[in-house]
């Protein structure tokens, strides 16, 4: 559920450091009727134009705090709230080139009471102005 709301497509932007683009970021939500403690968010997998981004290159930011996906596995004091828009950052030299891109997001959640581990996907065509 809420699949089409996982990627907030209007928020895609390059991330600059010292004048150089070091990656790109976008707003993202969890596709569920709950939020989830960060230790239970098993994966936030990003695919750009058909190419999988390495897990190590992904960061998640909530209310000013940033985690790697491995750090999130041991974070028991914070959560990605219901409907809350997190910032997903992909570290990639040069960031995103101008023009259209196909952005795919797959989130895997460990839900204690479900007899399976759900992964929900969202695909959006995004456009970055030159």
């Amino acid at each position: 559920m809420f699949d089409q709301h996982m990627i907030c497509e209007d928020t895609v932007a390059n991330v600059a450091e010292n004048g150089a683009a070091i990656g790109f970021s976008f707003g993202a939500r969890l596709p569920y009727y709950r939020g989830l403690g960060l230790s239970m968010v098993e994966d936030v997998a990003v695919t750009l134009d058909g190419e999988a981004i390495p897990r190590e290159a992904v960061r998640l930011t909530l209310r000013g705090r940033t985690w790697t996906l491995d750090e999130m596995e041991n974070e028991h004091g914070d959560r990605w709230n219901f409907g809350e828009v997190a910032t997903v950052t992909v570290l990639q030299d040069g960031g995103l080139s101008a023009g259209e891109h196909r952005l795919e997001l797959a989130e895997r959640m460990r839900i204690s009471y479900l007899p399976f581990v759900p992964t929900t996907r969202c695909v959006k065509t995004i456009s970055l102005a030159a």
Partner: protein
Amino acid sequence: MTGTIKRGVSLYSFQNETFLGKMTLEDFIRTCAEMGATGIEVIGEQTFWGWPEQPVPENKITDWHALMTKYGTVPVAHDAMLDYKRYNGRVMALDEQVASMKRDIDFAAALGMRFVRSLVSVSPEVLVASAPHAEEKGIKILLEVHAPLHFDHPWIVRHAEAYEKSGSGALGFLPDMGMFLHRFPPVWKERFIRNGAPRHIADYIEKAYEDRTLSEYIVMNVREMGGEGAAMAMAETLRHNAAYEPKRMLDFMGRIHNVHGKFYEMTEDLVEPSIPYDEIVQVLKQGGYSGYICSEYEGNRWIEDAHPVESVEQVRRQQAMLARLIDEPVATTNSSARAA
């Protein structure tokens, strides 16, 4: 006994509006009050950001009570989520689970709730060990009996036996009416067709369900009809749903203190096509039930790809139906034979 059943709403019903930030907590409470649904149930973590990883600020609790006073509504239940798989690679130990349950009991008490909803997968040992704390706080812990589980399932029987053995009045049940799925929901069928299930297979599944065919036979037949993807997914919903009998609640009435009025769709003429609310309300009356039926709209996920989600209108229709059914006199036609 007529008229003693009370109407409420679980704010779960408005998850679409909550998620997208279209309505506020005050909007929801006012909306429920306007419908005459005075009981309010929440999934604590949905309504109060941060919970349970972080405590809920005192001013949020104060605001909650102010809303209850302003609109004349009553806190009914906090639905707890015991995330016993919180730690990577291990399930929480009994004492950790009990500690988690106690925190939810304290939170429920702070909100003025009468009940904590426990997920059905929580073990009887955890609930029995939490019962003294619940008693102290004036809270009852209710196990949500939810499809595919039902009142004759050994897991629920085990819970019932443990509650009796404990002697605690703070343990009970909260049946979810989705377990009485008497017809395949039309909104499910149409979604599976949009997802690619061939209509003739969808028609077959709907008919086979109405015939009460064993789900495993339906799954096999759909595979033999060439079903794949969405068609198989549609068939497999029957492994998790069934048309259990509302009258099975009668044996457990002494421990049923809240009811989830699950529904997938309310039509314009105020009918839930898949769940027999007329029969359900009759059984509850027969059992002398005097608690709340809290609306639980779960249609959004089945229509959001193709239709606007109108949770408020859907809940309004269900509340109108419940009001009518609750006011109807108790059926006198061989109701005792039905209970036997």
